[in-house]
């Protein structure tokens, strides 16, 4: 009789089965056999059998490894230690088979042979090894050009959509920006010196294919400032049904430009008279809807850059947050100095004021946007808010009164106050 009758039931069905895959590895690796056996126990008992993680790592780093021990080590000695190694992925998750095989070789040698491509943050996740293997595995990784990613209270491995590598809508070079910032922040990635985790995600346009707005403390989302480029001939082809909506990836054969595009434009800034498509670009929200449905007729403008949004994270502790706009537009070009400097101002302010396990977004809620914006040297802008405050409980600081005394009407920031 099988030792994993419950898990076995996950071998049927059309979707690829992790059980089947693990079983063949179990034939080669005793720790995988024990992993399956322990997992079967969890399936029976509906409870995890991993102990609260311990602190393990490689020399000089305080991150990149998640310690993990079984609470059934006596029964399943193969999983007594089952630590995770997070390997920082390359920008856009591009690989050559050579590189991938190299990684497999290292992991077969030093670990369980199980992995995730990729973890939810973006790292390559090497799943399951013993403490004594960490250092040799790390040495071999670095020898082959790989390094660990982040974990704990560090700068976490940034990730990006593939952007200009394969997408016509990328408003800046997400791949390069992600790489440069990852390199820039190596020290902070490997040595926990922040109040909590800090994540960066780079999306090339408002479609946000790496979910930056939901999962990155600092979300860098591409955008254009000028006009959507229109190819009226292609518009005609969509109207005529020669071109399929959304490149063909829908159940709908033909686009009704009014019903499907202009009527659904959230700002109603488009019009179509049956012949020509017109856009009042000053009132466009950059939502991408029209572009998404007619990729051969419409393209973002050419004055491009990114919007910076800050603060998103999962629900711990006060409920989830989505990132909000802190800088409506920034030019994102190598060497990204403006961006790097801003990033430093943000993390320094947070490191100084943040409590243990307080994300930057929570800190701002605690201390107020003004204190943050002044520290980050960003002027207030209406784009930062969806709506202005409703309550009358606002503060005035000496700088406001000083500006008033100087005959200025409002203080917005040193050098930026309004006459």
């Amino acid at each position, binding site marked *: 009789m099988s030792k994993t009758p419950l898990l076995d039931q*996950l071998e049927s069905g059309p979707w690829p089965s992790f059980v089947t895959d693990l079983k063949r590895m179990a034939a080669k690796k005793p720790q995988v056999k024990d992993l399956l056996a322990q997992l079967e126990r969890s399936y029976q008992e509906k409870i995890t059998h991993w102990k609260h993680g311990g602190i393990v790592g490689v020399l000089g780093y305080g991150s990149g490894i998640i310690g993990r021990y079984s609470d059934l080590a006596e029964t399943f000695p193969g999983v007594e230690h089952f630590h995770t190694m997070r390997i920082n992925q390359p920008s856009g998750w591009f690989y050559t088979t050579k590189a991938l095989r190299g990684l497999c070789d290292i992991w077969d040698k030093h670990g369980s042979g199980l992995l995730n491509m990729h973890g939810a943050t973006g790292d390559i996740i090497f799943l399951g090894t013993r403490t004594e293997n960490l250092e040799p595995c790390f040495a071999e990784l670095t020898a082959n050009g790989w390094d660990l990613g982040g974990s704990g209270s560090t700068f976490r491995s940034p990730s990006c959509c593939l952007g200009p590598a394969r997408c016509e809508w990328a408003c800046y070079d997400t791949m390069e920006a992600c790489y440069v910032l990852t390199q820039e922040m190596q020290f902070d990635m490997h040595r926990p010196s922040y109040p909590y985790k800090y994540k960066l995600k780079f999306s090339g346009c408002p479609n946000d294919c790496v979910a930056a707005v939901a999962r990155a403390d600092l979300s860098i989302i591409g955008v254009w400032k000028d006009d959507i480029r229109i190819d009226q001939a292609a518009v005609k082809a969509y109207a005529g049904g020669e071109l399929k909506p959304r490149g063909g990836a829908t159940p709908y054969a033909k686009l009704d430009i009014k019903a499907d595009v202009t009527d659904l434009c959230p700002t109603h800034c488009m019009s179509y008279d049956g012949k020509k498509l017109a856009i009042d670009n000053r009132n466009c929200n950059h939502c991408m809807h029209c572009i998404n449905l007619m990729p051969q007729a419409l393209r973002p403008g050419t004055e491009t850059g990114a919007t910076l949004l800050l603060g998103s994270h999962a*629900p711990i502790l006060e409920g989830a947050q989505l990132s909000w706009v802190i800088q409506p537009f920034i030019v994102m070009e190598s060497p990204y100095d403006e961006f790097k400097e801003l990033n430093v101002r943000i993390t320094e302010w947070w490191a100084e004021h943040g409590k243990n396990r307080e994300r930057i977004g929570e800190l701002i809620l605690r201390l107020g946007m003004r204190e943050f914006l002044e520290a980050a040297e960003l002027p207030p802008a209406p784009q930062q808010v969806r709506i202005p405050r409703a309550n009358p409980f606002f503060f005035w600081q000496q700088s406001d009164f000083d500006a008033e005394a100087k005959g200025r009407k409002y203080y917005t920031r040193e050098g930026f106050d309004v006459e």
Partner: protein
Amino acid sequence: MSERKTDIGPPHYEQFLPPIIKENYGKWKYHEIPEPGVLKHVSETGAELYSVRAGAARLISTDFVREVCEVADKFCDGYLRFTSRNNIEFLLTDKGKIAGLKAELKKAGIPIGGTGHSVTSIIHTQGWVHCHTPAIDASGPVKAVMDDLFEYFGTHKLPAQVRIALACCINMCGAVHCSDIAMCGVHRTAPKIMHDRLRHLCEIPTTIASCPTGAIRPHPDKSLKSVSVNEPKCMYCGNCYTMCPALPCFDAEKGGIAILVGGKVSNAKSAPAFSRLAIPYIPNNPPRWPEVVAAIRNILIKYAEGANKWERLGEWINRIGWEKFFEVCDIPFTFQHIDDYKFQAYDTYRTSMHFKF
């Protein structure tokens, strides 16, 4: 001993890009999706790149990776990538090779799809395979749901894309909090205090401070050097356990899955939005979680039937109203649906006459 290398960071991506991408980097003009799972990108130079997207379990072995590499060598000159949702993309320039690639993948049991108006791979987490706080497994429910929704992976039948995610506890690793449909593992038991261990393992002030609802207090019996938990104030977040291993909040019987719906990330038409609670609790039922599978299918089907063209799940619900969502999907509305968690609660209340009977 040679100098120890540290802080080298990841390899530069350029070495992994196929020549066509290097040549057309930043020059892409438009794309088409000629069939489910197949993308065609056309450059301003006229060059054409094909990407074939394939699904896999995210928990895989090096054996599987080697298999995939073989396919990529055979059809793609050794170039491939993974997507932000853990799909594999085979990159090729020779259109003629697509059929062969597809056949090979089929043979290997690797499904093709995940593009456009489909259900693409489920973003998920570790579960009982690797984490210390899960209420549920991750890979198991994902496999069961994807088996059931398989027809939607390789087709473009839905009114819009549908993004499903799973997190095995309310830490919500992944994007559960902004998904069209999300499964979230939930505990329903306050931590059991292991006084003996607590004394040695945990700092009492930090433990007390870790509780977002203020449910933890110093134990009245000072000699215990421990804490007590005010159970009615506990909402089982496990944050105290993260700080103090002597406070496990697991329970074989009361853990289960909550279903949240209507979140999104893109800015297309409507703004990014959080997923919202649809079903507060479904009992944990391994190995195939049939009630969860059925609940998700039910929601997906009602959505597919009711939504307008291009409408994401949350956009559909917003249009018809949440009261109609509960009615159409025949899901009871309970006290748990009503937010009572701190600052966000008020904003969820209905402060208007805008509702339907």
